[in-house]
Every structure is written in C-alpha cells, then in structure tokens.
C-alpha cells in the first residue's frame, strides 16, 4: 500500500488506525455519559475500550504486514517504526485499562471517562510516533499530555493527587512553552517545520554551526526532557507518580515516556543528525545525570510507587544513550527496550495495584516482606519484573537483552560513546541496590503479623501473567524480537536521503 499524502484520500488512508481509535473513543465518550456512574457501567465501558484497542491494533498489524508506505516524505511518516511503536502504545493502554477496571474500590478514581481519556492519550502517542513535522509533534505531545494531566487528578478526594496533578500540569505547560520556542527557532533558521526539509536545509546550506538552530535544539531538548522526566527536568515525576493511582502511574511511566521518546528519536535522527555537534554533549550529560542521580535517589526510597518512579527516571537515562547513538542500531535498541520496559513495568505495577490499600499512596517495602510465603506466584512475578528492570540475564528475561542492545548501539556508534556505555553498566550495578532489596524482602524475610494478603482479581492476573511470560519467553528467544526491532528501525538519517526519494 502506498499513500499519496498530498491528496486528502491518501492522508485519510495513512491515518486510518488513528481514526479508528479517535472515532471509537468519541463513541465511548457518549456511551460513558449515557448511564449513571456505577461500577458496572465503568466495567462495560472499559471492556468496550479493550475491544476498541484490539481493533486498532489489528489495523496497525494489517498496515505493517502489507508494508504501507508514503509516496513522498510528507507531514506524517508511514513506516515500520511508527507501526512498531504504535503496537507498544496500544498494549500499554490496554494494560492500563485492564488494571484500571479492577482498581475501582481501592483507588476510587476509575469512572467510565477515565478509560476514554486513556484511549485519547494513546491517540496522542500514535500521532507522536507518526509525526514528521514539528507542528504534528507538538499537537501529539499536547493531546497525550492533557489527557494524562486529567487522569492524574481523577481522585478528587485526595489532596496529594490534586497537588501532584497541578505540579504536573504547570511544569508540563512550562515544558510545552520550551518546546514551542525551540520549534519556532528551528523554523526561523530553516524556514520549515517539516523534519525532512529541515534536515535537507541544514545539509544543503551547511547550517551545522548555526547558533539559532543550536539554541532551538537546546530548547527542544529541555521540552522533551520534561516529558520523559530526565534529570534535571525530573522534579515533578516522583510526586506525580506517587500520588496517582497505580494503573495511571504505570501508564505515565511507560507509555507517555515511550511516546515522547519516539518523537524525540525521529526528530533527532531524521532532521538533526547533521547537527550532532550541537546536541551530542547536552544529550550525553543529561543521560549521565539521569542515570547517576536517578539511581542514587532511588536507593533511599521506601514507597514502592515512588521507587518505581525513580526507576523510570533511570530508564529514561538508559534510553537517552540509545538516542545519543544516533544510528539505526540505536533506534532498533530503543524499540526492543520499550517492549521489555513496558512488560516489566506493567508486571510490577499489576502487583503494586493488587497490594495497594485504600486511602494510601501505594504499598511500601514492608508490604512486600515475606510475600513468597503467602503469595508465592505474586512474589515470583514481581521478582522477574524487578530482575528484568535490573537487566539480569536469564531470570530477568528480556531486560538483559534490552540493555545489551543499547550498549551495543552505544559502543558501535560513530559518536564514540564507550564512556557512556561504561557509566550505563556501573549505574545498573547501583540499581541492583534497590531492585534486589525488594526481591530479598519478598523471599528472605518473614511475613509480618497482620499483613494483608489481598486476592488478585482476574484482569490484573492476566496482565501480570502475560507480562512475565512474555519477558521470560523473549529472554529465552530474543532473536525474533530483535529481528522485528531491526526491521522496523529504518528511520533514515537525513544526510542519507534525497528530498525527492520515493518511499523509503
């Protein structure tokens, strides 16, 4: 399938999966408002949302299988990278809704509308993965973020949630302003917001040392840095993640981050790969700061949701290493990484959601002590997820290979990132301090008196079992996923492409 993006019909065909999700989400909005707010109604809307996500995923798979492409580089990309990232976003949204359906009596936040907001946020992420124009990047980021701001504030009875959501909203608006200013400066210097044209202009007129673009890139980096919670733009993340309900925290830590990274990678590789002199040093330092600071603060956390928040900051640092590599190997490492990271986080948050108690901000480390003796499968599942986040071979499943490919991309990168790879390995060793501490608490301590052993509801169980099974399966047979990631990594660097090349 080849789409001519200059024609409305071609454009319509190229965004069909997004359209399915948008129209479906609108229909579900009506359905959600149709009946009074009850738990049964919330469940039926949530199930309908899961079917809608499955339908959208089917459309994405169909497009990917048929090798859909664009006749000429246009305002959106029609390529494997987009479909691959879309599938991760859709899976994350589905896991969020599945966990959300059952967290109602506990977190008191889930209404039928919250499922709709998750869907609309996923639309924003799909737009981000497709965006080939800075304007579309901005619209995608805003669509994704605004829905998530509201999701973070859903629990109106919690002062902490309101505080966290307000912080998130204000800093997010601040980040958007930086992003817009960066876009304006890049536009001012190159006369276009289209990624391909920007790259082409930089190459043709030799603008690599251009001050205006360099300042623009710095602003873009600040904006994206806020969205992916990279140090020093991470201040909002722990408070917001701790206060939000567990499914929403998982969604923010996984999907929002992956969405922002997908756009960041495309912008960096498709239009700014010639400008690496301007962005390499800032990205390098942000990655180092994120890995070091995130890991050190995570060591002292007691609340598991807050700990996982710092862990997600740390993983943003690892992903920045893949961005700094700036090659297609980095892009494929990114795809592999977000799959493993999504699985490990949703597995972990399924357990956190199951162990959470009403009126608290989620379980602390003592709540996990001795879990092995009362809920052995829960302990094993959570343990595998922790080891995957740590990147341990075999027991950590896909997590090891995810880090391995990022390291490989860093070492083979023309930017000479060996030192960055060494720092990645060293900080991973530090992260064992908190990941293994949780594992030790579960397996080697007695269960405290009076500790609750809540039953795990069915959807949560499905999310946990699927995540852990996939993690272990990919860990044993990483070849298939690695091939898939490599095949879909072809985000062409701007230098290697003629502006009038047909397709890709």
């Amino acid at each position, binding site marked *: 399938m080849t789409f001519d993006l200059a024609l409305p019909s071609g454009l319509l065909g190229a965004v069909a999966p997004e359209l399915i999700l948008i129209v479906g989400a609108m229909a579900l909005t009506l359905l959600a408002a149709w009946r009074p707010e009850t738990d049964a109604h919330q469940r039926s809307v949530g199930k309908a949302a899961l079917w809608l996500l499955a339908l959208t995923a089917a459309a994405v798979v169909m497009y990917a299988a048929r090798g859909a492409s664009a006749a000429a580089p246009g305002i959106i990309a029609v390529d494997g990278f987009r479909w691959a990232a879309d599938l991760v976003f859709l899976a994350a949204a589905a896991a969020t809704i599945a966990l959300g359906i059952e967290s109602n009596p506990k977190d008191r936040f889930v209404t039928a*509308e919250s499922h709709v907001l998750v869907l609309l946020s996923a639309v924003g992420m799909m737009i981000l993965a497709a965006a080939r*124009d800075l*304007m579309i990047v901005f*619209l995608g980021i805003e669509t994704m973020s*605004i829905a998530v701001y509201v999701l973070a504030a859903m629990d*109106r009875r919690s002062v902490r949630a309101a505080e966290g959501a307000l912080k998130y909203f204000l800093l997010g608006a601040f980040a958007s302003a930086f992003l817009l200013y960066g876009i304006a400066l890049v536009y001012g210097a190159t006369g*276009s917001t289209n990624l391909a044209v920007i790259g082409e202009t930089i190459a043709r007129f030799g603008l690599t040392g251009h001050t205006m673009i360099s300042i623009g890139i710095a602003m873009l980096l600040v904006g994206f840095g806020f969205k992916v919670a990279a140090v020093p733009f991470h201040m909002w993340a722990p408070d917001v993640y701790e206060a939000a309900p567990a499914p929403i925290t998982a969604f923010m830590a996984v999907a929002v981050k992956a969405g922002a990274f997908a756009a960041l990678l495309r912008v960096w590789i498709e239009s700014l790969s010639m400008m690496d002199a301007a962005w390499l040093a800032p990205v390098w330092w942000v990655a180092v700061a994120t890995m070091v600071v995130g890991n050190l603060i995570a060591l002292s956390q007691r609340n598991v949701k807050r700990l996982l928040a710092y862990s997600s900051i740390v993983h943003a640092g690892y992903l920045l290493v893949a961005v700094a590599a700036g090659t297609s190997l980095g892009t494929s490492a990114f795809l592999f990484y977000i799959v493993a990271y999504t699985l490990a986080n949703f597995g972990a948050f399924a357990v956190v959601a199951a162990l959470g108690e009403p009126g608290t901000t989620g379980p602390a480390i003592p709540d996990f002590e001795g879990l092995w003796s009362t809920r052995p499968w829960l302990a094993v599942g959570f343990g595998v997820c922790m080891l995957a986040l740590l990147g341990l071979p075999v027991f950590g499943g896909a997590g090891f290979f995810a880090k391995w490919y990022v390291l490989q991309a860093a070492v083979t990168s023309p930017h000479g990132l060996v030192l960055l790879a060494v720092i990645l390995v060293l900080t991973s060793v530090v992260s064992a301090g908190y990941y293994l501490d949780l594992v030790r608490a579960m397996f080697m301590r007695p269960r405290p008196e009076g500790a609750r052993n809540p039953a795990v509801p069915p959807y949560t169980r499905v999310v946990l079992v699927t995540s852990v099974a996939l993690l272990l399966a990919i860990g044993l047979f990483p070849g298939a996923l690695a091939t898939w990631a490599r095949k879909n990594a072809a985000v062409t660097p701007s230098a290697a492409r003629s502006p009038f090349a047909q397709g890709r």
Partner: protein
Amino acid sequence: MNEFYPLVYTFHFYLFGLVALAAAIVFVTRKSPVAAALWLVVVMTSLAALYVMLDAEFVAVIQVLVYAGAIMVVFLFIVMLLNLGTLSELGEIRGKWGRIAAALVGLALVAELAALSRAAYSLRVTVPARSGPEAIAETGGVIGSIAAPMFRDYLLAFELTSVLLLVAIIGSVVLARKRSEHDAG
C-alpha cells in the same frame, strides 16, 4: 494616497506599538486579576490595529473576536468563578528571588533576540518579493492565503487540533463534574 501617507503610517505604527507595550507592562504589574485582564484587552486591541496596518484585516478581526472577545470573557468568568478578584495577597507569591530570576530570563531573551536580529543570518524563510494589497490579492486574498495552507498543506494538523480541543473539553468536564459530586456526597 497623499504625500503624508508614510508619515501618518509611521505615526500610527508607533502609537499602537507604544500603547501595546505600555498596556502590557501595566498588565503584568496589576495585582487585581480583573484589572490585569482588562489591560490585556487593550494590548490585544492595539495588536489588532497593527494587523490592520499590515493589510491583514481578517487576522485583525479574528484577533478582536477571539482574543480580545471570547478568550478574555472566559478568563474573566474563571476569575469570577474562582473568586480571585478579591485576593490581595496574590502579589506575594512573587518574591524577591522570583523577580530577579524572571528579570534575568527576560534579559537573556532580549539579548538573544537582539543578537539574532543583528547577526547577518541568511534566513530561509521565503519572503514574498512584493508586498501590499496587490500581492495579497494575487495569492487568494487575506482569507485565501490563510485558508490554503490551513486546509491543504496542514489539513492534518488542523484536524488534530480539534482532537486536542476535544480532549481538553472532556478532561475539564470530567474534573468539574467529579468535584460537584464530591461536594454533594
């Protein structure tokens, strides 16, 4: 067009420009949100006058209708709903360090813009060779030259903006309704 036209034009440019600048400074220094909002209306209207002088009447009308009209009304509504009009301690959130930081950022911005405009950059923006009413009419008039990119080149962006606004509307309704329900229960 008489011989005084350039002089009259320059006079009006500086008149509206200075009014806009002065009103903007007054706007950010007011403590009462209502007074600040009203000064913002003055800024918007002066800018609309500048747009008219640039032969962009449509943009000027939209500026008055949307910014000076609709958005300011919503702004005042929110101020009244939240009852911010009577709070005099609002000014105290801007402490000494906040002011200094803001001044530094502002100075950095001015310095940057000055440096960028002074340096001889070969801008890639396609500036039309001719300007004025005739050139605008050739490209489809004031409305046509806005409509063509909006509904042709950036059709997708335009439609996505409506999705973005829909998300914002759903979000605000969800949050507002939750609170009233909580107050009742």
